[in-house]
């Protein structure tokens, strides 16, 4: 689960990670009171959406920049009005962009130097890793690719937690001294505590800055949480912003379906994440384009299949459906019955190819064949993919 920058910074403050003073506004009426809480300008005005690349983004009405530096509070107000309820397109939002429904005003900071700091899971060691770099404010992939010697990593032993020598080592490697060193050590320690206690999946600060007065501040904040651990963090769940999520994905979650929208025209309905991913792959292999990832899970019911069809069909790009079920334990006839019911109920007009294999497959195929509906049956994944690609073309 992702949260907004302003929410992440509130968490930072709670854990003692220094951030520039900031106030969020969720309605236009809140703009002026929010600005009044900040000391004198300059102020930075930041669009709050769950996607990066905001600064270089463009709004659909042509207004440029989802993050603006304002010399006066009057300018800040004007920028906020331009951003609010406007749709921001960045390198990470896709062409549809995201509607800005919260604006975050922060006190502008004088920057001595920019750094990079992140905490996440290191999959090789199965332990948390702290990643830092002297090259902040730029794309970290680029730094990793071009100057990997400027990236430093500390692996934390979960049995004892982050040790003092580790944070010192990291701060020294970043070349920090004096107050900067002391403040960075404190900040890294606090950030790790927050990462660990909140079950964060990733915490990224880019840039982390030093100021002429000796401060070390998190100028930006990107935080995501482990979905599996949300059950023990109601305070984190409360930060969820449904406006940032695809309504189809929210609907799917209600039926325990895992759905991710893509931009192709062949919808798929599959059991199992690995099989669902490879179904997308095989559609592409035969020249088609998948419209979604949809995993109905290991024990799909008739209701789930019907819900899945409804969700798939709300995507106007969908021109055909491929159902791929390997019913290991699950009864293929249950799936077949669900497919027939959904096809009837929704008056399906677009081509449907069904590949069933596994438990009780003969009965499942019979149900499809005797339904009187135009359902194309396939024996293998390859056969199904070729058929649906041809039918949609």
């Amino acid at each position: 689960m992702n949260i907004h920058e302003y929410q992440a910074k509130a968490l930072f403050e709670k854990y003692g990670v220094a951030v520039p003073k900031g106030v969020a506004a969720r309605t236009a009426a809140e703009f002026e009171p929010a600005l009044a809480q900040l000391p004198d300008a300059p102020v930075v005005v930041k669009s709050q959406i769950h996607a990066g690349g905001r600064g270089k983004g463009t709004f659909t009405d042509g207004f440029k920049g989802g993050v603006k530096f304002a010399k006066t509070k009057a300018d800040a107000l004007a920028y906020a009005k331009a951003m609010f309820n406007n749709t921001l397109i960045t390198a990470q939002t896709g062409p549809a962009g995201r509607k800005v429904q919260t604006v975050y005003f922060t006190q502008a900071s004088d920057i001595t130097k920019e750094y990079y700091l992140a905490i996440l899971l290191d999959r090789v060691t199965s332990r948390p890793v702290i990643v830092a770099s002297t090259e902040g404010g730029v794309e970290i992939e680029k730094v990793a690719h071009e100057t990997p010697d400027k990236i430093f990593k500390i692996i934390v032993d979960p049995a004892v937690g982050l040790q003092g020598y580790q944070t010192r080592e990291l701060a020294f490697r970043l070349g920090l001294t004096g107050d900067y060193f002391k403040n960075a050590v404190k900040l890294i320690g606090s950030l790790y505590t927050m990462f660990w206690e909140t079950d964060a999946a990733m915490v990224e600060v880019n840039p982390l800055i030093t100021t002429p007065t000796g401060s070390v501040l998190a100028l930006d904040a990107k935080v995501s949480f482990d979905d599996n651990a949300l059950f023990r963090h109601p305070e984190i769940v409360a930060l969820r912003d449904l406006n940032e999520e695809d309504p189809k994905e929210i609907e799917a979650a209600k039926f325990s379906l895992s759905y991710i929208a893509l931009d192709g025209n062949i919808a798929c309905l599959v059991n199992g994440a690995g099989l669902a991913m490879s179904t997308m792959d095989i559609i592409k292999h035969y020249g088609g384009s998948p419209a979604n990832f949809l995993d109905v899970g290991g024990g799909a019911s008739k209701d789930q299949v019907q819900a899945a069809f409804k969700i798939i069909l709300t995507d106007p790009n969908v021109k055909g459906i491929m159902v791929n079920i390997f019913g290991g334990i699950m009864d293929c006839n249950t799936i077949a019955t669900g497919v027939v019911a959904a096809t009837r109920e929704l008056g399906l007009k677009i081509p449907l190819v069904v590949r069933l294999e596994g438990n009780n497959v003969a009965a499942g195929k019979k149900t499809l064949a005797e339904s009187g509906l135009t359902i194309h049956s396939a024996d293998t994944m390859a056969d199904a993919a070729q058929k649906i690609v041809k039918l949609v073309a």
Partner: protein
Amino acid sequence: MSIIVTEKTKVLVQGITGEFGARHTKLSLDYGTQIVAGVTPGKGGQFFEHGTHRVPIFNTVRDAVAATGATASAVFVPPPFAADAILECADAGLDLCVAITEGIPIKDMIRAKRAMLGSKTRLIGPNCPGIVTPGTGKDSAGGCRIGIAPGYIHKKGHVGVVSRSGTLTYEAVFQLTSKGLGQSTSVGIGGDPVNGTSHLDVIKMFNDDPDTWGIILIGEIGGNAEVEAARWVKANCKKPVAGFIAGATAPAGRRMGHAGAVVGGAEDTAAAKIAVFKECGIECAITPSDMADALIRAAKAKGAKLA
């Protein structure tokens, strides 16, 4: 022969009285697996009954082991309590813990894995379909089935299958069986970022097993476990190996943010992994329908037998 488990392995089930655990315990019993005990705290002394089977239930894993000599466990415990169940296996000194549970918090697994360092207990999973060593009976019955895989699609034989994904494992096993190629053991290592047994661990065991003549290695995007296994295969494995990587069309950025790419390196996309497989002499399945055929091609190229 086989790896990790044989038809004689004595298995206990943690969470045997839950709906999911009970359903799959029955299927394992029907398959002929030696399910000797169940563990549900507070239900010690009761029995799990299925047909003629009467499986004793214990309050703790330690009690179950002492009474029955079980050496392996299947964990069907709900996510909030699953890491605790895994550690109970390790503390009781089991050889094997197969964690089926999906949705365990990553932090719980980070801690459990650290706590199991140096333990004799091998962890498979979590979030995995489990392990099957097929038997010689009808539909491969008489074998050892720990977890949730369909037993009947297997056939006793000489191909080892290792995969992160459940249904893709079934797909590969089904293709093999349909072509008359049996399996020594099929292992689902699970889809979670922190898991016990890696692709490489399983590949090494298949390499050492004289009864495994060929290997199918199934992976997916994210992490570098498949790359690690492939490099080892290139240097050490003479047996034919076929590979498949799922997720070539998965949307970027839906997994991890920027820093993930730093730690994972450039090797965690499907294209990068397939390139490494090819470079390491692993025959790549062009589509998921091609997994068994890819292994047959690999065997032919090496002049090796698969059955």
